[in-house]
C-alpha cells in the first residue's frame, strides 16, 4: 500500500505553476485538435511525445493526458455542429447532436456534450484512483475467449441501431468487415487484398477511412445540396430563446441514469484492453434508446443521446489507464502512446510502478482531476468560439474543413497514399448514403473487425480449434446467452414498433428538412 504522505506529496506536485500550465496547454491543444476535422488527439500526442523528452516527467505525462482528455471534448464539436465527426467515437454523438444544432440549439447540444464528457471522465478517474488494482486483476481474467463473447454481445446490442432496413444494415456491416480484412492477417501475417501495395500491409488507416466516409462525403454532399444558394450559414440562425442556449440543471439531472449507465459501460470497456471508446459510445447509445420510454425521439435531437455517447466515450479514457498503470498493458492507441512517454522518462508501467513511482502516479491522478476542471472551463469558452466560427458562410466553412481534412490525413498517414484512400472512401460514402446504407454501421464493423478477428483466432488456438469447448468459460457462456436474448428482444421490438427510424447517418436530417 502506498504511504499517505506519498499520495499527498504527489497531489501537491500538481500545483506547481509549470505543471498546471502544461495541463492547461494540453487541454487547450486537445480541444483544438479534437474540434478541427482531420486532426485528432492521437496524432497530436504522437507528434508531441518526442518534444516532452526535455520536460519534467509529471508535466510531460500530464500534458499528454490533457491532450487526450481535451480531444474527446473537442471531438464532439464538429460532429454536432456540422455532422462531420472526425473520429468514429464521435459518430454516435452526431446522431442526436446534429439534429439539435439544426433546430437552432447548437450551444445547448455542445454544452450537453461537454458536461456529459466531463461527468463520464470524472467517474472513470475516480474508479481508477480508488479501485484500479483489483479491477485490473479482474480484467486479466477476461482472456481471448471471454473477449470474443463480449464483442459478440457488443455487436448484438449495437445491432439494435441497424436503422430502417435490417438487410441494408447487415450489408453495411459485412462491407465494413470486408475492408477491415485488408492487410496482414493477425495470425500468420499473410498479406490479404493488398494488390501489391505494401502501404496496405498494416490495413487501411482508420483515419483515412473514417474521415473520408464521415467527414468528406458529408461535406461534399452538403455542397451539392446548397449549390446555387451561396452565402448561407451552416447552422439555423439563433432564435434568441435563452432556453436553447444553456443546459438547465433539470435537463442535466434528467440525464443522470443515462450518464451513469454511459460512464459505467465506458469504464468497464475501457478497463478491458482492445475494445475501445467507439464500441462504448454506441453500446451506451443503443441501451439508452432501448431503455427510453420514447425511443422514437432518438436521432431527432434527444439530449439523452448526447449524454449517453459522450459520457461513455470519455469514461474509456480514464479506465484505459487501469490496465496501463497497474499492468503496463495499453488498452488503446492513446494508451500505448502514454506508455511510450513513460518509457522515454525511464519508467515502465507495471506492478512496481505504484511502489517505485508512487509520487508520480498520484501526481498524475491529481493532474487528471485538474484536467477535468480545466476541460470544463476551457470548453465553456471554446464552444462559443466554435459556434461563432461555424456561423460563417458555408463556402468558407466547407472549403476550410476540406483543407483541414486533407492536411490532417496527410499528416496522420504520412503522405498522399492516405489521401487517396480517404477520397476513395468518400466516394463510397456518398454512394452508400444515396442508396440508404448506414455509414456508421460500416465504420463500427470496420473498426471492431480486426480486434474481433484477432481475438477469435486467439480463442480458437486456446480452445484447441473447437469452439464448442467455450463451455469451459462460464463468463463467455453467460455473455453469449445475453447476446441471444438481446437480439431476440431487439427483433421483437422492431416488429412491434414497425421500423426503427434512427437516422444513423443514413437519411440524415431529411426528417427535419421535411418539417421545415
Amino acid at each position: 500500500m502506498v504511504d499517505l504522505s506519498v499520495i499527498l506529496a504527489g497531489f501537491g506536485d500538481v500545483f506547481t505553476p509549470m505543471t498546471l500550465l502544461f495541463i492547461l496547454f494540453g487541454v487547450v491543444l486537445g480541444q483544438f485538435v479534437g474540434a478541427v476535422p482531420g486532426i485528432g488527439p492521437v496524432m497530436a500526442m504522437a507528434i508531441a511525445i518526442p518534444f516532452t523528452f526535455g520536460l519534467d516527467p509529471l508535466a510531460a505525462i500530464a500534458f499528454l493526458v490533457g491532450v487526450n482528455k481535451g480531444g474527446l471534448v473537442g471531438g464532439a464539436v464538429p460532429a454536432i455542429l456540422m455532422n462531420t465527426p472526425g473520429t468514429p467515437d464521435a459518430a454516435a454523438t452526431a446522431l442526436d447532436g446534429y439534429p439539435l444544432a439544426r433546430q437552432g440549439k447548437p450551444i445547448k447540444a455542445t454544452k450537453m456534450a461537454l458536461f456529459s464528457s466531463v461527468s463520464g471522465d470524472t467517474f472513470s478517474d475516480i474508479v481508477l484512483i480508488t479501485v484500479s488494482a483489483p479491477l485490473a486483476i479482474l480484467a486479466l481474467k477476461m482472456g481471448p475467449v471471454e473477449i470474443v463473447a463480449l464483442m459478440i454481445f457488443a455487436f448484438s446490442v449495437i445491432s439494435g441501431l441497424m436503422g430502417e432496413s435490417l438487410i441494408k444494415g447487415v450489408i453495411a456491416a459485412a462491407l465494413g468487415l470486408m475492408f477491415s480484412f485488408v492487410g496482414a492477417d493477425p495470425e500468420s501475417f499473410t498479406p490479404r487484398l493488398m494488390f501489391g501495395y505494401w502501404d496496405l500491409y498494416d490495413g487501411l488507416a482508420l483515419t483515412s477511412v473514417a474521415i473520408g466516409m464521415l467527414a468528406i462525403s458529408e461535406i461534399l454532399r452538403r455542397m451539392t445540396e446548397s449549390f446555387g444558394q451561396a452565402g448561407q450559414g451552416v447552422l439555423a440562425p439563433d432564435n434568441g430563446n435563452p432556453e436553447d442556449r444553456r443546459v438547465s440543471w433539470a435537463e442535466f439531472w434528467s440525464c443522470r441514469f443515462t450518464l451513469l449507465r454511459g460512464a459505467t459501460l465506458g469504464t468497464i470497456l475501457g478497463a478491458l484492453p482492445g475494445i475501445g471508446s467507439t464500441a462504448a459510445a454506441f453500446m451506451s447509445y443503443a441501451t439508452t434508446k432501448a431503455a427510453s420510454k420514447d425511443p422514437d425521439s432518438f436521432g431527432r435531437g434527444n439530449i439523452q443521446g448526447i449524454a449517453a455517447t459522450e459520457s461513455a466515450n470519455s469514461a474509456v479514457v480514464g479506465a484505459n489507464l487501469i490496465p496501463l498503470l497497474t499492468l503496463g498493458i495499453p488498452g488503446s492507441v492513446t494508451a500505448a502512446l502514454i506508455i511510450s512517454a513513460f518509457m522515454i522518462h525511464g519508467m515502465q508501467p507495471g506492478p512496481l510502478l505504484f511502489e517505485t513511482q508512487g509520487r508520480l502516479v498520484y501526481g498524475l491522478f491529481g493532474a487528471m482531476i485538474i484536467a477535468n476542471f480545466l476541460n470544463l472551463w476551457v470548453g465553456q469558452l471554446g464552444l462559443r468560439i466554435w459556434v461563432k466560427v461555424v456561423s460563417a458562410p458555408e463556402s468558407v466553412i466547407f472549403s476550410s474543413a476540406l483543407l483541414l481534412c486533407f492536411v490532417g490525413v496527410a499528416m496522420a498517414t504520412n503522405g498522399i497514399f492516405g489521401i487517396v484512400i480517404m477520397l476513395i472512401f468518400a466516394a463510397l460514402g456518398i454512394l452508400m448514403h444515396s442508396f440508404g446504407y448506414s455509414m456508421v454501421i460500416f465504420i463500427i464493423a470496420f473498426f471492431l473487425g480486426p480486434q474481433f478477428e484477432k481475438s477469435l483466432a486467439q480463442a480458437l488456438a486456446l480452445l484447441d480449434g473447437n469452439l464448442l469447448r467455450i463451455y469451459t468459460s462460464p463468463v463467455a457462456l453467460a455473455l453469449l446467452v445475453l447476446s441471444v436474448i438481446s437480439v431476440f428482444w431487439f427483433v421483437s421490438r422492431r416488429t412491434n414498433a414497425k421500423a426503427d427510424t434512427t437516422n444513423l447517418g443514413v437519411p440524415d436530417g431529411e426528417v427535419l428538412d421535411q418539417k421545415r
Partner: protein
Amino acid sequence: MKLKSKLVALGAAALLAFGAPATAQDWGPSEPLTILIGFGAGGSTDTMGRVLADQIAEQTGWNVVVENRPGGGGVAMFTSLSQMPVDNHTIGMGVGIPVLVQLVERGDQLPFDLDSFDYLGTIATAELALVASADAPFDDLEGMIAYAQEQGTLPVATMAPPQVLMMNAAQRESGAEFNLVTAEGGAEVIQLILGGQVLAGFASGEHFPYLESGDMKVIASANANRLSYAPDTPTFIESGVDAYVDAVFFLAMRDGTDPAAAAAIAAAIDAAVQSEAVAEIVRNAVQGPAVNLGPEGARMMMVNGLENAQRLFQN
C-alpha cells in the same frame, strides 16, 4: 569531370574500406537530411530514431527531419526508399527481422533485396526472451518441453512468425505439442501470461517489471547469444532447439549513394549512438545497450540474418 568525380568516389570507397573516415569531414549536407522511420509515431523505433536525429543535429549542426512511414514492419518504407532516386540525403531506419521474413517469404514480389541499400550502422539489438509466470511448473526450455509432453499440449503466446517457427522447431525436435496463440505485441503476451490463458510467451522487455517484482521468470533466450540481463539462462540453441532470431535496429540509404556522404552520415550516426542521450533512450526502449555495428557490421547482420531466416522457413 565525370572521371574525376568517379576517381574521388573510388578514393573515398578505398578510404572507407580501410576504415579511415577522413572523407567524413569533407562532406556536408546541402539540404536537410531525412530519416524515414519504418514504424508509426510514438513506438520504440520512432522514439529512438527521433532522439538519434536530435543528437546528430546537435553534434553536427546539420538539419535533420524525421518522417514516419509505417507499414509491414518497415517493408513499406524500404520499398519506397528503394524506388527513390539517389539523393544522398534520405536515410531509412527499421528493424532487420520483419524485412528479412518478407524477403524470404515473398522476395519475388518485393522491388528490393539486401543489395538495394548501403548500410550505415545499427543503434540497438532488441533482446527476445521466452518468459513464463514465476509459478509455472518448469524453469527452462527443456523442462517446458517435458511438461508439454506430459500434459499433451501447452499454450504459448507469440508475437510474430519467426517465433512461431522457433516453437515449431521445438515441437518437431521433441514431439511435444504447443498451442500457439498470436498476440499483438509484447504487452499482450504479458497480459495473457498474467491472466493464466497461456503458460509461456515471447517478450522483448515488456516483462522487465515482472522480473523485478518476482512474478515472472525467463525460460530461454531466443537470440543467438544469452540475454544481457539473464546470463545464466541458456538460449534455444543451447537447450537443443536449433533456432534463433535477432532483431537489430539499423539505418541504411539507397545503394549508389555518394560514398563520401554515406561515410559522413555513418560517422555522424556513430558519434550520436555513443552519446548519453541515445544510450538512455535505447535503455528505456529496448532494455539493452546502444550498439553500433558500423556499416560493414550492419550489412553482415542483414546477410547472416537472411540466411538464418531462410533456414527457419525451410524447416
